[in-house]
């Protein structure tokens, strides 16, 4: 448990009913908040984090000591302005930064859950967040915002609780996980499971960590977050502190050294089994399948105002997948804005300094706030 987070506990008396039909309790959900909740509790924005991120959206991450992962977007005077809005960012169910996940203790056995932890879904993550929002006494969120897997949670929030979401901002995401994305995840999971230190998922009991497997998983995944152009610009074929090739399998190339660094630092802050469970939840995500194979059914009748965002060089969640969401929203005449941001930085662009993205989201939120103001007046 990270001491710098708040948390709620979901008690045995009121367990989460998971999509796999199992009951889960007790469950702890750790979260951070920024800004102040106003008197009528109408200024709350829920930020849903991506696969390997956490609740430290706009403050220092206690393990890495790095700034919050979205400080460019969230803060005083930023597009998601903490002077105006009350920001809530929970660590997802299944995560490893204070919320209940496979590294937590299984109350039935007194040992870490490991692979006995039930397989969870994006919908289960949302249900856990609903408990948090209930506990905070908030009826309707002014906005639910998230990129990548966070965007899947945004879509699921609207599908399950349309009346509780005034605006929704799904960024660099899709309504279902593509075959290619499932394939990349499977490579990552197999790398973890092939590490002997994984110990069939019971590494915590043996005081081990499948460092190599998890690092390889992260290295493979990290490539998918970038673009060929960005990699080329950043590294090209440059050698790492070398005048010539070493004719060995050392990290001669800068790009190799960079990936190895990404892999090893990731292992220090992330639980291997969490990685398995969360990637699985993403693979299972298919909002159309949950609604009779018609994505539009997920949004029928919803009054939520949408701002869908994609990036030109994102090949993990390409623009055409965002366009599918937009088409489904148009099919039910929902209120939707859709911007494609020109960027060569790949999927990770949503986390980076992208002025067009900031302008779109800031403008969208301002207009929505004005709309809600006039409706109430």
């Amino acid at each position: 448990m990270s001491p710098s987070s708040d948390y709620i506990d979901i008690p045995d008396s009121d367990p989460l009913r998971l999509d796999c039909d199992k009951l889960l309790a007790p469950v702890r959900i750790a979260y951070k908040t920024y800004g102040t909740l106003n008197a009528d509790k109408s200024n709350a924005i829920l930020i849903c984090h991506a696969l390997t991120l956490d609740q430290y959206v706009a403050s220092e991450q206690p393990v890495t000591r790095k700034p919050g992962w979205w400080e460019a977007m969230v803060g005083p005077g930023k597009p998601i302005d903490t002077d105006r809005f009350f920001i809530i960012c929970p660590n997802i169910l299944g995560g490893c930064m204070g919320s209940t996940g496979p590294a937590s203790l299984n109350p039935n056995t007194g040992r870490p859950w490991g692979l006995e932890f039930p397989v969870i879904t994006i919908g289960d993550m949302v249900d856990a967040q609903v408990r948090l929002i209930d506990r905070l006494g908030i009826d309707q969120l002014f906005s639910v915002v998230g990129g990548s897997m966070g965007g899947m949670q945004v879509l699921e929030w609207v599908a399950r609780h349309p009346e509780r979401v005034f605006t929704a901002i799904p960024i660099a995401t899709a309504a279902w996980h593509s075959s290619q994305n499932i394939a990349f995840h499977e490579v990552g999971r197999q790398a973890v499971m092939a590490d002997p230190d994984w110990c069939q998922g019971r590494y915590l009991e043996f005081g081990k960590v499948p460092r190599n497997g998890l690092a390889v998983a992260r290295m493979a995944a990290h490539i998918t977050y970038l673009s060929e152009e960005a990699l080329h610009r950043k590294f090209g074929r440059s050698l790492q502190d070398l005048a010539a090739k070493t004719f060995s399998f050392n990290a001669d190339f800068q790009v190799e050294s960079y990936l190895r660094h990404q892999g090893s630092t990731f292992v220090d802050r992330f639980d291997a089994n969490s990685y398995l469970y969360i990637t699985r939840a993403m693979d299972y995500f298919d909002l159309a399948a949950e609604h009779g194979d018609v994505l539009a059914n997920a949004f029928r009748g919803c009054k939520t105002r949408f701002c869908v965002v994609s990036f030109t060089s994102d090949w993990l969640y390409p623009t055409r997948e965002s366009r599918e969401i937009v088409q489904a929203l148009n099919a039910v005449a929902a209120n939707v804005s859709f911007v494609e941001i020109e960027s060569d930085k790949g999927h990770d662009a949503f986390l980076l300094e992208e002025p067009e993205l900031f302008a779109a989201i800031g403008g969208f939120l301002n207009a929505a706030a004005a709309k809600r103001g006039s409706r109430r007046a």
Partner: protein
Amino acid sequence: MLAPSRPAVHRVDHLLIAEMVRAGSRVLDVGCGDGALLQLLADTKNVDGRGIEVSRERVNACVARGLSVIQGDADRDLADYPDAAFDYAILSLTIQATRYPKSVLENLLRIGHRAIVSFPNFGHWQVRGQLLFTGRMPVTENLPEAWYASPNAHLCTIKDFADLCRVTGAGVERAVAFNLKGQKLGTWLPLTVHNFLGEKAVFMLTRHVLPHRP
């Protein structure tokens, strides 16, 4: 992050459309450009407005101004919308740049209870004169680009457009032509005069054809 205030100079066709549209209605502006019409309709008629625009930069600028706009294309994306989703489906100075004007118009009439279409009139005397006397494709204020640089693919005259309305079974509720000075031409003038003096025209259409008398 508030949108910069814009000069209150509005296009005459926009002002006419704003006059035609009922307050508080649901409006889709196809080819909404920089969002000037949507903004005008939001400011003066409190409409629930949406836009479609092909240019990514313009879309992003519209969204940053707080307008509900998606990047899309009149030829491709209108098919996604359900029947009668809007009170008005507007196509302002865009139909001449579409690939399939007839199916675009049919979609507008399907999506909106009413369609409002404005277009540059290729029958205007200036256009006719330029073609007749110079032997070259006309370049005017409404048609500013050279033929090879123009996005316009299907230019038409007011008479041509009236024919298309008949072919698609659209009922013309109102048709207004503007002269070079932006003044409305008198409705008592015959169609031929509108077609000669009108620089651009605005049609308000319904999908219901008025019953024919044999």
